[in-house]
């Protein structure tokens, strides 16, 4: 069995069928250490199937998954989280009616020996996270602010900050800029940069190339269940990438 240590995640020859329909056909997908990968493709291209396999929601019909060079057997949602793979869904990440500090520690509350919540400590930590990761202090947010009053971009920021705080190695953003305004999108891109600066990796799923281009190091284009193109940002300009995507949409091939 070949073992490589140079990638954070390697998914090899992954196939997944839903009945007769092949959602993924012998797909190979990698994420490097400290790399931001833009995963691009239309609806039904297989992006979410690929991610759901990686996060343990679906089991692949064929193929292997390696994390830090070690093959993952018995993959599950819990296992993925233990490994440090965290998904940030736009609508499903936070409890909107709860305070920020509760959301940051949601499901991972800090307690003392008697099992009581360390509220003060949690608020202090939250304050720190707000300042360092999100740079929120200007907006007048405090750990007691109710999350529902944050903007869409800020909410994503909180979810990303939470993942970073709990040492996620790989943060998966599922369509993070959908339905966001221009300035909000910019905020999200800054959070992605923060992920990169902290030495972690990120998969940025989108069908909008304009949103992912500034943030990603590498682009993977999926179409009908397989990779049709892979580009390093240094090798391809935005214009070229857009042209290639049009080509894929028309023909299903990139060149």
């Amino acid at each position, binding site marked *: 069995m070949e073992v490589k240590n140079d990638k954070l995640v390697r998914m090899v020859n992954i196939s997944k069928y839903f009945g007769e329909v092949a959602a993924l056909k012998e797909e190979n997908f990698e994420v490097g250490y400290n790399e931001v990968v833009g995963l691009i493709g239309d609806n039904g291209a297989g992006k979410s199937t690929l991610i759901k396999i990686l996060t343990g929601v679906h089991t692949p019909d064929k193929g292997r998954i390696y994390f830090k060079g070690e093959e993952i057997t018995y993959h599950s949602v819990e296992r993925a989280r233990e490994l440090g793979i965290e998904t940030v869904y736009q609508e499903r990440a936070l409890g909107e009616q709860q305070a920020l500090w509760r959301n940051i520690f*949601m499901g*991972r509350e800090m307690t003392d020996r008697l099992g009581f919540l360390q509220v003060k400590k949690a608020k202090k930590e939250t304050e720190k996270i707000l300042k360092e990761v999100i740079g929120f202090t200007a907006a*007048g947010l405090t750990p007691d602010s109710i999350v529902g009053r944050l903007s869409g971009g800020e909410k994503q920021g909180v979810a990303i900050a939470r993942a970073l705080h709990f040492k996620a190695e790989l943060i998966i953003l599922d369509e993070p800029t959908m339905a966001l305004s221009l300035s909000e999108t910019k905020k999200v891109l800054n959070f992605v940069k923060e992920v990169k600066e902290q030495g972690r990796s990120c998969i940025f799923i989108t069908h909008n190339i304009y949103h992912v281009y500034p943030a990603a190091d590498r682009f993977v284009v999926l179409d009908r269940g397989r990779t049709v193109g892979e580009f390093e940002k240094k090798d391809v300009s935005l214009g070229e990438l857009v042209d290639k995507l049009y080509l894929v949409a028309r023909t299903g091939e990139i060149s």
Partner: protein
Amino acid sequence: MEGRNKMESLSRGLSTRKPKEKKIKMLKHHLKLSELKLQWSIFAVLAALFTLFIIGDPRTFLAPDIYYSFMSTIPFMAIMAIAWTPVIICKEIDLSFPSIMGFSGWVCLAVFTSTGNVTLAVVSSLITGLLAGFLNGILVVKVGVPSLIATIGTMFFWRGAAMVCSGGFGGSLAAAKGTILFQILVGRIGGVVPAQALWTVAIAFLFWLILNRRKLGSYIFFTGDNIESARMMGIPVNRVKILVFAQLGFFAAFAGILANFEFLYWWTTQGGGYLLKTVAAVFLGGTSAFGGTGTIFGTFIGCVIIGSLEAGIISVGLTGFWTQLIYGLIIVISVSVHSILRRKT
């Protein structure tokens, strides 16, 4: 068309006043406005109400007797309302607790009459309540019946069970009077303060502690707020819900036991009148019917308001016919105020 124009002009208006709005927003964040405001508004209603009572009938409402009387009668409802609050926060509902109170009350009576052992009677009654509540939880979580429907079913079932088991007859617990447990549960402290009032305060504190200072509290809030994200963050939402139903059964039984000992009699209809008043008290207290938020403080004050309204209305000189009308008025107004406060913040 008109609505749209209005919206547009509104949003334009907002954008020109931006700096001011930002300042207000900042203030609001700092003050945690909505929660505090809700709690103050309900407290203000209580204060206003008692001011009215005192003005209307100073002789009754400036003497301690009426308050001792409230302290002996409000706890039955208040304990159940406190235990009902987390169910609502969890975005579920339970209509069966008055019936569980009735049936557990019968178990208490039956065990006591056949064994003469008060402790055994109390313990078996509490276990009955806990199991009945647990059953609700199983029906909702494991079987997948919507809680409204499941608990309408168990509401009829436990009331029916109480009728069948008792043969439609109530029973006296007079022999329990004077036992130590009787003193602990419903005795009069210092000869005047009903013990059940202290139990209620203690239970309220316990629930406040759990909701605000325990992991379980966080779990309850998140389960009601956004069950998908709670699940994703590893919160055992199913267990939380079952537990929340089970504890309500337990405390309904406890309320039944208190009522048994306070009146030294069990009626087949025990608990029957508490459903709507409890519901009213909880929503009056600012707990959201949409789940995710609610306070024990609010529920507690809501119970005092609902529990003292009837006596107040009559002492002020209105006939009993006014009671329901005023109940309705207070509930509709306060729930509307809550909704408006929530929307604005």
